[in-house]
């Protein structure tokens, strides 16, 4: 970097930057940067006198009148007959299962008098271990989405369910007579044992019926790779709890692989710095083709084009003694040497993981390397395929439709009209199908092209079951009766097989498990499974496969790497394949690395952007063969050269009011050949467009020294990471604190930047969605943000994450400037925000050095995206317009625990209060508790030599502190 920005503040130990703008513009004018978040009102035009007086008068009148209201007369509505377990005012928790990218993930759902409002991970479920990710968290908002499909549609007209079941009853004799010829079923991969068994039964009944499955984000390359190596498609999962070295070959292990929450926990276990000593850490090497949080957390990362990962894998395999033809790798040879020798030093304690977007050869190589290193059975585990799949894929279905073999097509919980590869022309071929039936949560693109659309029940309204990545089964139980008379896929398949609409999901699931458990102790086991959220002992048995000896030689020769631009498609981190496009939380949540919100963009590395003469916000035409798409550019540090990455899931046409028309539809460039990547992309600048919305420069803290990072080697050499902090003299009196003193420590070594904390906080604290226009004005309301800093060269930067909630300063600068005492200190050291006193001067936000306060510029509850009052936490005030708000350390949880303890006449136990962010964190990077309890984890963490606070020189005495980030780079590679 030629134009490094001069460092400001004091104690700066690293040259950090947050966005390309900071590197290219010398420094923003000081005053502008110091504006409180979101300043710059809607009144951009000059004001005439008349309007000025009108506004002044109105403000005075409104300010005066609002206090004069009489309390509204409200009703109290008791039950007619109260269910035994319901105590009004006390929530109930149920263990259930949600879909996590095709596999089951156990969650605990909170129900407030019958209303599911909050989700957290089920600690007993192997895929969750108590953690959450934003995609799971968002599903509770999805339940109340007013845009969900609310009725059966026959040819676009509202129809009763009976009209559909009657139709099937009439068709069924034809199926019976013709053995189901002409009937086709299209589903995603099925993780539900009940649904899989039902479909198998259906196929037995109608022998000629066909089942096709299609996942837009498919993992078939892994199965094909296993097929090459073992002769059969096996599922692979990992156990990193004993791993010392992990190499990812374009696998986003900690965000996108099934089991990612568990992997993140295991990685953190090997990277947590306990005590002052510097033990060896689990070392993470990543070769990747786009920027992911896995790469951001690597000790050593190599960004290469997607097509070049195979060459790196071959190079590595050759170094480890496998006889494969090496390709020409863009990864430096010394790097591969170092990785190979590190792997070799840790036989059985290392793992190589290949990503789903890589071709089968890379998966095969990863399997062979793992076998060579003795990792099978220890860190790398195999099972028979967990998910059931149809005999054919989408291409086969299209071929059958083209041949006129499909008379009836039933599409369960899928949206192929939107997400099918463009070259299949699925939409056009649908015309040849006589009867098209679609079951889905939304009346989406596919519903619009179907004769019948049937509303699907949300997972929180359904009975069902699902298998996790390791085969562990768990039950899905409803927390609420279907809001819109929806049906589950199992119920629909039972209709096809001859049952009425009356067949209830619960009976179907019970029947399945009755068969599995045997009748004897079934009821007890059923109850136990429902209560625990997992069916005990249901994990798939591990198999110990042996690679075919010649597998290495049989790998197809490496493809010659083509020059030119390469297009890479990836699922959106939050919208995934597009299914969550109408979820306001997920649309607004900044993406972990680009910090983009409300839209996708063509991600291009700085070097590529420079050579093409592009900058963020430019509109470009992407042409691949005869398909073209126009997309905005986002210059993303760390993207490999000559690669354009686009996230799928945007540009929906019939997602709903929130998701329609947000972003560009990358599926239009996707073909069956270029499922994940394609070479020969042509890019042409079309002009400047509106800049994509990104929060990366919002709430900057004046470029001071915030993230501290070091290495194991530096700690060993005695280098001082955290300089001793002298107490700063203060003119304010020291507060005496009696009772608990709440504090938080965030471990930057284990924080992976996954944003689960932000999503959980939004769910817990009724944080509104402000919409794209207001996010663009820095008005996003998330109470905790994850700052992402870069260090070093923009083409291969080091990435550092830092979650920033309210610091809960003991000497809080915000409190001194509030003219109405709306922000004051509580006895237990919390910086309270009293909404009903706040008059919206925003002085507090201006005076907050950490920029953690958020202002309600509008009545976001009315303008909600979508408005969903049902999901609101009844124990947290919904803030009105003109009110300041901020992180409260989940005050409602603290008070609830204190009241519970008081009621039970005992003192609070350690760990009894857990904040929402802490609970959701997959790596347990956030610790919270009473600083006065000397044995509490948080009090111990505060004594850690790596513990530091932000801006100690201001004398604010923050209660939130950080443990400096420690990595363990391989000395053979250097930094």
């Amino acid at each position, binding site marked *: 970097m030629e134009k490094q920005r001069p460092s400001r503040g004091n104690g700066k130990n690293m040259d950090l930057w947050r966005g390309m703008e900071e590197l290219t513009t010398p420094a923003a004018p000081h005053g502008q940067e110091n504006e409180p978040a979101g300043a710059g009102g809607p009144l951009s035009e000059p004001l005439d006198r008349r309007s000025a007086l009108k506004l002044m008068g109105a403000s005075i009148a409104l300010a005066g009148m609002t206090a004069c209201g009489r309390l509204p*007369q409200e009703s109290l509505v008791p039950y*007619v007959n109260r269910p035994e377990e319901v105590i009004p005012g006390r929530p109930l928790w149920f263990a259930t299962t949600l879909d996590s990218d095709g596999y089951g993930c156990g969650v605990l759902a909170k129900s407030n008098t019958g209303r599911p409002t909050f989700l957290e991970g089920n600690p007993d479920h192997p895929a969750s271990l108590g953690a959450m990710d934003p995609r799971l968290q968002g599903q509770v908002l999805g339940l109340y989405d007013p845009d969900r499909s609310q009725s059966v549609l026959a040819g676009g007209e509202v129809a009763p369910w009976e009209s559909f079941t009657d139709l099937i009853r009439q068709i069924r004799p034809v199926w019976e007579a013709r053995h189901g010829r002409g009937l086709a079923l299209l589903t995603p991969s099925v993780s539900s044992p009940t649904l899989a068994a039902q479909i198998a039964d259906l196929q037995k009944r109608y022998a000629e019926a066909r089942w096709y499955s299609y996942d837009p984000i498919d993992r078939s390359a892994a199965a094909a790779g296993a097929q090459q190596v073992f002769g059969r498609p096996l599922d692979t999962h990992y156990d990193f709890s004993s791993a010392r070295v992990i190499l990812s070959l374009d696998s986003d292990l900690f965000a996108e692989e099934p089991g990612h929450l568990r992997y993140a926990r295991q990685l953190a276990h090997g990277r947590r710095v306990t005590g002052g000593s510097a033990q060896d850490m689990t070392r993470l090497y990543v070769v990747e083709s786009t920027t992911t949080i896995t790469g951001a957390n690597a000790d050593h990362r190599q960004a290469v084009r997607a097509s070049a990962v195979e060459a790196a894998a071959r190079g590595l395999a050759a170094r480890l003694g496998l006889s494969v033809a090496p390709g020409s790798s863009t990864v430096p040879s010394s790097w591969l040497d170092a990785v190979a020798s590190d792997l070799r030093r840790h036989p059985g304690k290392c793992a190589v993981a290949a990503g789903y977007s890589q071709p089968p050869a890379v998966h095969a190589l990863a399997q062979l390397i793992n076998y060579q290193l003795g990792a099978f059975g220890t860190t790398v585990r195999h099972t028979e395929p967990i998910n059931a799949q149809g005999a054919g894929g989408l291409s086969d279905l299209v071929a059958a439709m083209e041949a006129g073999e499909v008379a009836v097509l039933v599409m369960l919980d899928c949206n192929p009209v939107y997400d099918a590869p463009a070259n299949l022309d699925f939409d056009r071929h649908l015309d040849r199908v006589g009867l098209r039936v679609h079951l889905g949560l939304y009346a989406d693109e596919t519903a619009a092209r179907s004769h019948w659309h049937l509303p699907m029940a949300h997972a929180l309204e359904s009975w069902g079951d699902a298998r996790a990545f390791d085969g562990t089964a768990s039950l899905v139980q409803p927390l609420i009766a279907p809001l819109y008379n929806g049906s589950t896929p199992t119920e629909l398949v039972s209709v096809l097989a001859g049952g009425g609409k009356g067949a209830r999901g619960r009976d179907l699931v019970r029947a399945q498990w009755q068969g599995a458990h045997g009748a004897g102790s079934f009821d007890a086991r059923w109850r136990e499974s429902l209560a625990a959220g997992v069916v005990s002992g249901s994990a798939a048995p591990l198999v110990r496969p042996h690679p075919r000896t010649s597998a290495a030689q049989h790998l197809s020769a490496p493809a010659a790497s083509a020059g030119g631009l390469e297009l890479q498609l990836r699922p959106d981190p939050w919208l995934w394949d597009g299914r969550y496009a109408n979820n306001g939380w997920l649309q607004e949540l900044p993406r972990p690395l680009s910090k983009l919100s409300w839209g996708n963009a063509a991600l291009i590395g700085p070097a590529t952007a420079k050579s093409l003469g592009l900058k963020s916000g430019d509109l470009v035409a992407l042409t691949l063969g005869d398909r073209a798409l126009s997309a905005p550019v986002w210059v993303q540090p760390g993207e490999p050269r000559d690669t354009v990455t686009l996230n799928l899931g945007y540009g929906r046409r019939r997602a709903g009011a929130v998701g329609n028309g947000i972003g560009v539809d990358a599926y239009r460039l996707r073909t069956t050949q270029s499922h994940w990547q394609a070479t020969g992309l042509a890019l042409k600048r079309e002009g400047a467009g509106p800049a994509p919305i990104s929060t990366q420069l919002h709430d900057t803290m004046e470029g001071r020294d915030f993230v501290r990072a070091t290495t194991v080697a530096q700690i060993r050499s005695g280098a001082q990471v955290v300089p001793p902090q002298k107490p700063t003299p203060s003119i304010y009196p020291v507060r005496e604190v009696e009772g608990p003193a709440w504090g938080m420590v965030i471990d930057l070594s284990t924080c992976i930047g996954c944003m689960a904390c932000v999503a959980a906080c939004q769910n817990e604290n009724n944080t509104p969605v402000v919409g794209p226009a207001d996010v663009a004005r820095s008005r996003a309301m998330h109470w905790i943000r994850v700052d992402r800093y870069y260090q070093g060269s923009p083409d291969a930067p080091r990435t550092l994450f830092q979650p920033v909630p309210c610091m809960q300063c003991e000497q809080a600068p915000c409190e001194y400037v509030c003219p109405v005492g709306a922000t004051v200190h*509580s006895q237990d050291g919390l910086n*309270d925000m009293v909404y009903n006193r706040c008059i919206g001067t925003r002085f507090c936000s201006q005076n907050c050095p950490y920029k953690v306060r958020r202002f309600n510029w509008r009545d976001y509850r009315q303008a909600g995206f979508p408005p969903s009052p049902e999901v609101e936490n009844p124990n947290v005030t919904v803030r009105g317009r003109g009110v300041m708000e901020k992180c409260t350390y989940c005050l409602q949880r603290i008070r609830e625990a204190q009241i519970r303890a008081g009621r039970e006449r005992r003192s609070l136990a350690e760990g009894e209060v857990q904040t929402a962010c802490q609970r959701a964190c997959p790596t347990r990077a956030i610790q919270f508790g009473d600083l006065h309890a000397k044995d509490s984890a948080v009090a111990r963490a505060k004594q850690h030599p790596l513990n530091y606070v932000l801006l100690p020189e201001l004398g604010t005495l923050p209660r939130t502190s950080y443990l400096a980030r420690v990595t363990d780079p391989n000395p053979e590679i250097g930094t």
Partner: protein
Amino acid sequence: MSQIFKPRANDISRALLITLGLLIVVTLAAVETMVLLPYVTMVGMVAKTTRAGITPEQPLPFSHKHHVSEVGLDCRYCHTSVEDSSFAGIPPSHTCMTCHSQFLSTVPMLGELRASLTENKPIHWKQVASVPGYVYFDHSIHIAKGVGCETCHGHIETMPLTRQAHAFEMEFCLDCHRDPAPHLRPRETVTQMDWQPPKNRRALGEQLMAKYGVKTAGLTSCSTCHR
């Protein structure tokens, strides 16, 4: 940008400022008068805004006087969750029918109750004792610490139709949160309407505070009740 205000605006603003000054004096005087009125008198504007003393019309003429002082029911017979939850609980229609299926089972007065049961439609009671939405009052902790029902709800056993006994202004809560001793009673007498405090109530209160672990530190923090 053109000039927004003409010079004449100076005179207007001066006039406004003087009026504003006078207005402040008048308002302060008015507020003072209102505060001096004991709010238990439930008259005038205070009652209007705080709803103290207001008896909303209910779908059924339920009498606490009859059920408490004449029949002798304990509060917790109907308000079952008062010891376990923030919300004391309004009895489900089934609870009423434990007696009224046998007793007064045909009187027209209870038609609404019977209809609720037969049609499975809940009764919509008007809330009598209410605090603003930003106040998070929890019944269970007050019961556990020995605050009697009567302390806030007044002599409900004398009310044929229920009214809010006190103005639940912040001062009312703070009186006790600042100095709980004279307001506490033994936990087992919490629901007793005729409980007579001993001569030296403060001494008893202090004893109970120690026994029940009532600490005043933090009781007046904003976030104790507002969140």
